[in-house]
């Protein structure tokens, strides 16, 4: 069922700040969302992502800053007059109403005509693929179904912006990825500008046009998933997004470090270094290259490392190697390639990338 593709709204958030006593929840949070975009706010608990969302929704007040939708000031409006749709983490459906009554709530409150309401409800149920549940009650639905109804309810009012507060966190893992894709499909179909808050980086990377990584109330980097992964702007982003090895290294000069006897340039946004400094290099597993040592030997010679763990992850396999440091170094190979390696094997480890990001130990 195709719904009218509305022209999405532009959402401008500028300098948003909020403190709770001594705790700074949001610090000069600024973000510009294009019409029709899905932006994910990603970060650990306490990073400010939910606070930012709730300020936009009108459920929290900001100490400073502004929010504009299509140029219109939003913060001066009360929460129930912002034309915004919101989906909560769990169980926000009204228990005393059927699915149809839940979905039509926003329309009934606006005193829409009942035949128009009926049509809109049916359209929404088709959109989330739950037409047969029209007269069910929330307690009769599964978690995934409830969230889909919540989504339908939020979209029924044709909001200018859609806000999602960790909508998948309360769901089972299997259901989670299904609903996640559904949300993305529906969002694209309806063209609604969307702000999606989550602490699950896989979720954010999978569906967002751009992801904003946050920490301690600050936006560390706002970029496409690809760029976040390959060109992290800060060490926090590098370690939070995707998996990374943190390997001790020594600075050779102000532009190069030595990791595992290899000289490598440091990447942009690394900390400033001087020759002799001890730092940590952030190395992605797919950059770790393994070479099987010729011959079999029980003795490890210099430059050789032993394979300790091998984890089958489906298309890829993660291999943990003991390079003589406190922690194993993990390499990620295609499972096909990984067939050549077994635990106990001796390998030579090298790093195959142009530059690495380094941070202080």
């Amino acid at each position, binding site marked *: 069922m195709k719904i009218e593709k509305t022209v999405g709204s532009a959402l401008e958030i500028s300098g948003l700040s909020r403190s709770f006593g001594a705790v700074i929840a949001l610090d000069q949070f600024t973000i510009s969302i294009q019409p029709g975009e899905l932006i994910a706010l990603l970060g650990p608990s306490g990073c400010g992502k939910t606070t930012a969302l709730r300020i936009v929704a009108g*459920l929290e007040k900001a100490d400073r800053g502004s929010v504009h939708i299509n140029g219109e000031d939003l913060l001066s409006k009360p929460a*129930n007059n912002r034309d915004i749709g*919101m989906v909560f983490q769990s169980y*926000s459906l009204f*228990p*005393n109403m059927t699915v149809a009554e839940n979905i039509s*709530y*926003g329309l009934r409150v606006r005193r829409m005509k009942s035949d128009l309401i009926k049509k809109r409800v049916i359209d929404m149920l088709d959109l989330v693929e739950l037409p047969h549940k029209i007269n069910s009650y929330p*307690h009769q639905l599964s978690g995934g179904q409830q969230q889909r109804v919540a989504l339908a309810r*939020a979209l029924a009012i044709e909001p200018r912006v859609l806000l999602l507060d960790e909508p998948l966190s309360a769901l089972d893992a299997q259901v989670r990825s299904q609903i996640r894709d559904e949300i993305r499909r529906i969002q694209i179909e309806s063209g609604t500008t969307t702000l999606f808050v989550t602490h699950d980086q896989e979720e954010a990377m999978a569906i967002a046009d751009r992801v904003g990584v946050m920490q301690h109330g600050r936006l560390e980097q706002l970029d496409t998933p690809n760029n976040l992964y390959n060109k992290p702007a800060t060490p926090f982003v590098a370690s939070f997004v995707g998996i990374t090895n943190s390997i001790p290294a020594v600075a050779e000069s102000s532009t190069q470090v030595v990791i595992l006897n290899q000289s490598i340039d440091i990447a942009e946004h690394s900390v400033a270094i001087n020759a002799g400094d001890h730092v940590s290099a952030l190395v992605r597993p797919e950059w770790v290259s393994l070479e099987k040592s010729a011959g079999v030997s029980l003795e490890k010679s210099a430059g050789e490392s032993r394979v300790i763990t091998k984890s089958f992850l489906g298309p890829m396999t993660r291999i943990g190697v003991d390079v003589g440091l406190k922690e194993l170094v993990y390499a990620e190979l295609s499972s096909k390639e990984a067939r050549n390696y077994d635990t106990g094997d001796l390998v030579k480890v090298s790093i195959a990338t142009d530059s690495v990001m380094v941070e202080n130990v």
Partner: protein
Amino acid sequence: MIEKTAAPATKVAEGRSFFLKGDSVPIALLPFFAFVTFFLLWPISDVLIKSLKGNSGEWTLSNFEPMTHGIYLTAFQTSIELGLITAFIGAVVGAFFAFVIENYAGRKLTAVLDSISAVFANSGGVPLAFMFIASFGANSAVIRILRGIGLDLYANGFSLFSLTGVAFVYSFFQIPLMVLVFKPALKGLRKEWREASMSLGGSNWDFIRRIAVPVLFPSFFGSMLLLFAGGFSAYATARAMTVGNVPLVPLIIGTLVDGNVIANKANQGAALAVGMILVAVIAMTGYVWAQRTTSKWQAR
């Protein structure tokens, strides 16, 4: 869209657990069932049987006849009236208090108020009666003060030992009881609902009218039924307060059991008791139904 199918129910092999064999023979529960049968179920059935027996031990319904007229009927009516009035006052005022405590009281204050409510709610009985006799008796400080500001209650026919007086006193445990019983229901009113309503464009009034009231209604009504059952059946307070001038069923039963009674009268007492049981059971069934509905809606 593939629905998540329910996992087939796995059977836990009871016999393989480390301790007692499965639940085929509930030996461990026997003490409980025995105790309850002996001291609860048997007495109840005894009351039922007694009510159906006549002077010479024959089966009869004649014991129930006096309840259909005269003093016994009046007593039932008065008791029901008392129950309804105190239930209503308790429910409305108690709900209001519960709302305020839930929304405006900090953690410590709430804890203190909770325990005070518990004391008041369970007070009933003798201490409460005496306290009121002392504080609202003709000579008490309160009455004197009120008289001083021109409000002479007693001149206007107020008496603690009337139906009004008893209802007045009952309210003081009905209201806290309502707070105790209803506050959890208020707690169950999730803030997500209010926030969702706001985000969908609903005003405060919309939320109250369309969501809060309907959701709270079963609990409110059920609690009121609980209060009714209590107000209807209360004995101790009334006994300590009235001098027999207010016809209440519990009191009549009390007098029938009290003095030297002819077997006939005792069985009539049993009949009255059965009548009380009926009324109370109807009310409590409504209460249980309301609880079930509420927990169904508010299941997490």
